[in-house]
């Protein structure tokens, strides 16, 4: 069972990085949003440094949506999802493997690249560390919540827009605590650990609820 699970993760990572996959696109999109913000707000570095964590988190939320609509849809269209459902691997674990692969190709690169992009919004090294840590812990929650929407819209031809409408409200708590934790690390009345631990809890809850709900959503549509 572990081998099947790992094989599925490896397959999805391979698909994401090859031609036609959305592997690096999320990162480019992330950079694009971070670049647009100074154009909208002006090149004031003090202002950008203050709202930097918020900008990076917002960019991460939007970049997670990339590729999410194809999470189950591509497999649904060519029939491989039916084969995956016939395999001895429980559907919940299939969903977990696919979500994990999605996070490894979108969330993790964002977290790793965040310090680099933090330079663009004049973040201090301390803030960069905080952003990286919060993105590392928080982006899995975004993927797991998004998986529910991806499963619900997997049979629709134009599910992308609907997917965003369905899952963005559910991502609000993650956004709130991600930005709070990053800001808390820069000073303020709240210790860093409080929002950070809640962010961690949100990720754990999303991993359980998201996987089970996405698997159920795939099952009930027959």
């Amino acid at each position, binding site marked *: 069972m572990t081998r099947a699970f790992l094989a599925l993760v490896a397959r999805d990572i391979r698909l994401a990085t090859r031609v036609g996959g959305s592997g690096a696109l999320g990162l480019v999109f992330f950079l694009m949003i971070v670049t647009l913000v100074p154009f909208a707000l002006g090149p004031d570095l003090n202002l950008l440094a203050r709202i930097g964590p918020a900008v990076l988190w917002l960019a991460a939320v939007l970049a997670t949506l990339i590729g999410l609509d194809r999470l189950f849809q591509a497999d649904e269209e060519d029939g491989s999802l039916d084969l995956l459902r016939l395999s001895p691997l429980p559907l919940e674990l299939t969903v977990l493997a696919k979500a994990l692969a999605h996070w490894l190709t979108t969330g993790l690169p964002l977290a790793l690249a965040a310090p680099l992009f933090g330079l663009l919004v004049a973040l201090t090294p301390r803030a960069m560390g905080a952003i990286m840590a919060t993105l590392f812990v928080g982006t899995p929650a975004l993927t797991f919540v998004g998986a*529910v929407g991806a499963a*619900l*819209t997997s049979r*629709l031809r134009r*599910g992308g827009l*609907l997917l965003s*409408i*369905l899952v*963005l*409200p*559910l991502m*609000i*708590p993650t956004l*709130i*605590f991600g930005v*709070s934790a990053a800001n808390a690390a820069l000073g303020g009345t*709240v210790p860093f650990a409080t*929002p950070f631990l*809640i962010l961690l809890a*949100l990720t754990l*809850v999303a991993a359980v*609820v998201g996987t089970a*709900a996405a698997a*159920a*959503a795939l099952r*009930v*549509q027959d």
Partner: protein
Amino acid sequence: MLTRLANPGVFLRWSGVALPITAGLAAAVLAAGLGMGWFLAPADYQQGETVRIMFLHVPAAWLGLFFYGIMSASALGTLVWRHPLADVSQKAAAPIGAAFTLVCLVTGALWGKPMWGTYWVWDARLTSVLVLFLMYCGILALWRTFEDPGRAARAVSILTLVGSVNLPIIKYSVDWWNTLHQPASVFRLDGPTIHPSMLYPLLVTALGFTLLGLALHLSGMRTEILRRRVRSLSILEAERLDLQEA
């Protein structure tokens, strides 16, 4: 009782009797409640006449949540007990709940302008209601994307249940976010206690709006059952025409 009502025919007969009674009661109680609230209750010593918006605003807020509760219960009915009318109830409840939430937002904005000097503030309560409205919009959008009503109902049930797990989390995080951003609230919505001269009309209007909501819900369910009948009849007819031509 619930099992007997699973038969759409029985439900249509039963609700045909219950609907006029509920609607009539709603009209009577609302007339009494709003009459008391708008004409008999005293104006607030601070807020003046604008306090009368409360008699629309507060029941609307309560019903916005109440109908999400109905949807969640019906979603459980759809997924767990496969009750044939649960998805009908779920579908009928969504637009009503969305409408009450919108009424709550709009009356809140209109009340906020004279009281706080602005139509909108990012207060925790307002933001939570706005998020609730967004979730209603998502649910309504998902209903419209599936052609088969049964499949749509099961998909929406999952979204509704995930939403009902998330609503307390969202509420909690919005409270946290708000206290972090503006520690001292400029306004206090709930004074020490509400005077009985306003409380009783408020309770009566809340009851009236609940009855109105239930009447709308019943009528929405009846419409949905009839719509499904029309749908299956036209499918049957199309099949018959198909056979004749073959």
